[in-house]
């Protein structure tokens, strides 16, 4: 079965992440290098075990558009998020034997290096992917 593992971040987190101070400690070059090394081996192991379907990181939240219907017309809002609002930052799609295995994979992400405050706050979600039409009752 396929599962999606999701990570989150706010505009502020993205800025700290790219080395810009924004209230909290900014990431250093060493933090970055450690992160890149961790992600590389994490993804490699998933690829080797045949469980990785795909993984993507999303651009910083200021580059976002929200589209919704307003008075019958689709209207776009540029940059719809507040600075501290946590939004989807990246995801993995994995294909593995069970929800527990997918959770085990997700749990390994808590080993990801980074500034302590950020590590303490971070979380990942795991969600099964619905590959079949849901049964419509009624």
């Amino acid at each position, binding site marked *: 079965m396929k599962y999606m593992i999701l990570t989150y971040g706010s*505009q502020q987190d993205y*800025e700290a992440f790219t080395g810009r101070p924004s209230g909290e400690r900014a990431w250093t070059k060493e933090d970055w290098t450690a992160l890149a090394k961790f992600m590389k081996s994490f993804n490699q192991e998933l690829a080797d075990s045949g469980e990785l379907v795909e993984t993507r990181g999303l651009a*910083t939240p*200021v*580059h976002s*558009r929200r*589209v919704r219907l307003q008075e019958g*017309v*689709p*209207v*776009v*809002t*540029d*940059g719809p998020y*507040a*600075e501290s609002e946590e939004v989807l930052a990246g995801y993995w799609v994995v294909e593995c034997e069970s929800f527990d295995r997918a959770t085990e994979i997700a749990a390994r992400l808590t080993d990801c290096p980074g500034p302590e405050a950020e590590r303490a706050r971070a979380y990942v979600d795991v969600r099964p992917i619905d590959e079949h039409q849901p049964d419509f009752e009624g």
Partner: protein
Amino acid sequence: MLDAETEDLLRRLTPQVLGAVTRGYGHFALAEDATQEALLAAARQWPRDGVPDDPKGWLIVVAARRLTDLLRAEQARRRREEVVARWTPAAIEPAPAGDRPAEVDDTLLVVFMCCHPSLSVTSQIALTLRAVGGLTVAEIARALLTSEETVTRRITRAKRSIRDSGVPFARPAGEASRLDAVLRVLYLIFNEGYAGTSGTELLRPALAEEAIRLTRTLHSLLPDHREATGLLALMLLVHARHRARSAADGSLVPMAEQDRDLWDRTAIEEGVDLITEALPQGPTGPYQLQAAIAAVHDEAPTAEATDWPQIVALYGVLLGLDDGPVVALNHAVAVSMVDGPDAGLTLLGELEADRRMATNRRFHAVRAHLLEQRGDRVAARRAYETAAGLATNTEQQRYLQERIKRLK
């Protein structure tokens, strides 16, 4: 300092980088600022660190990063002011299947954006020189003989109109008429460089050469667009004479008195080749006709050997497409060269009723010249004086005063 080759590369990449960033992230107005900042960063870093292996990719990455910063600042400001940027997506027609490489389309899209009909002509010119030509505000101000504040204002206003009108970054509907606007902007930039309307410097070859460079780019993007070909040919054929056009003291030399050895034979040859190829392909347009006329002049070994009947015929066709005062006047001059000053004066007499002629310096100068040729010195002097009263360029002023003195 950048070497000429790198500067050339940066300027050529400018519209491609702006196009790629706008296509990827939107926000044309901010993307334009971001692109300029990326160019500055390159001008600072490349001489020190060397040109990167993928200069365009480098510039796109840096510009996108700058765009993020600019967007963040803008969104923070908006949030403070509790304003939300909302817009309705315009229907974007899918681009025709990729028969052209992406960067080519991007340059063209940037050109269309800069010449959008919602912008004033002065804004179109300033924005085109910056976003397509890669010139700095200071360079544009120098080229247009205006202040940096004025240029900044024109560019800012242009970008605001683009943002507010929600123009999509895509091939425009009614591409043909939009292309006419693009050619007109390029033609105006060339003319502005060729003979300024004010100031003491008669020729500003740098601006004319920039117009040629941009038109060459357009021609390479649209090799089958015959008016674009015609415009490039026209510019080359006229600009070929620029070294002969002003004397050592800076005064204007009329074409009949120019030293033809100073004409640029390479430019003439290229212009003649272009127009020879474009003309026979069907119904013609005003740029092609003007290029054909310029070619007849350029190919005459001496002023006396000019094929005036041919020029009269070409102006006759041009008059059918453009009844403006410039064409009508040139037609009258050509007719006087074939049939004598009286024939020219008769045509001018017919034009006199046109309101646009009363305040046209050239109308009075041409009339003065023809009157002088037939020996009517008093009337000639009076006409030269009227022309001098209308001249704004100090060189033209000097030339006309010289004529007046000779008739006293």
